[in-house]
């Protein structure tokens, strides 16, 4: 049982390049989330999904797109990376039941030059 895994762990991009971050969970959780973590700003929700085939915007969605084609995977895409997207990205998942914790992945450190 690997829990929540994220690929890649580190990535350096040039401004304007695109990339996709992959999140996978093996706990059969319905809900999945993408956050970004920046110094002094805590964790901010980018997009989330309440089930396969569904996605919704969070607090800071601009510049990102997501897809949930399979229940166990949640992809975060950057179409044209900007230096402001330099951050640590975390994926999380949780079962549909109330009062359940969100399980976080180990994070992806992204630098945009």
């Amino acid at each position: 049982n690997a829990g929540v895994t994220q690929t890649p762990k580190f990535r350096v991009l040039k401004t304007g390049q695109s990339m996709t971050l992959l999140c996978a969970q093996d706990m059969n959780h319905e809900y999945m989330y993408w956050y970004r973590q920046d110094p002094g700003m805590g964790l901010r929700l980018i997009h989330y999904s309440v089930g396969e085939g569904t996605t919704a915007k969070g607090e800071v969605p601009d510049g990102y797109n997501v897809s949930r084609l399979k229940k166990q995977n949640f992809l975060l895409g950057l179409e044209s990376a900007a230096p402001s997207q330099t951050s640590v990205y975390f994926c999380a998942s949780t079962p549909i039941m109330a009062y359940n914790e969100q399980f976080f992945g180990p994070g992806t450190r992204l630098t945009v030059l």
Partner: protein
Amino acid sequence: QQQVKQSPQSLIVQKGGISIINCAYENTAFDYFPWYQQFPGKGPALLIAIRPDVSEKKEGRFTISFNKSAKQFSLHIMDSQPGDSATYFCAARITGGGNKLTFGTGTQLKVEL
């Protein structure tokens, strides 16, 4: 707009001392208040959580105190240990709509020998 305000930003405590981190919120629709602990290079992990129908919850050396009328809650770490050195995030959740969490900005705790 920061819906959950957390203080202090950083905290240094002597081994064996009490660490106290405070959070305040405005949205009365929040119905679940977890605390997450994050070690360097790792994803956050649930530490302890409370619902607003109780005023205190204790798990080992960790206690949440909740003041519904003041819209404040705090984390107390008794007998603080060097292994408690980490970043702590308070959070608040609104039921439904994906069970999204709003996080505080984090407190970096260092426990010195």
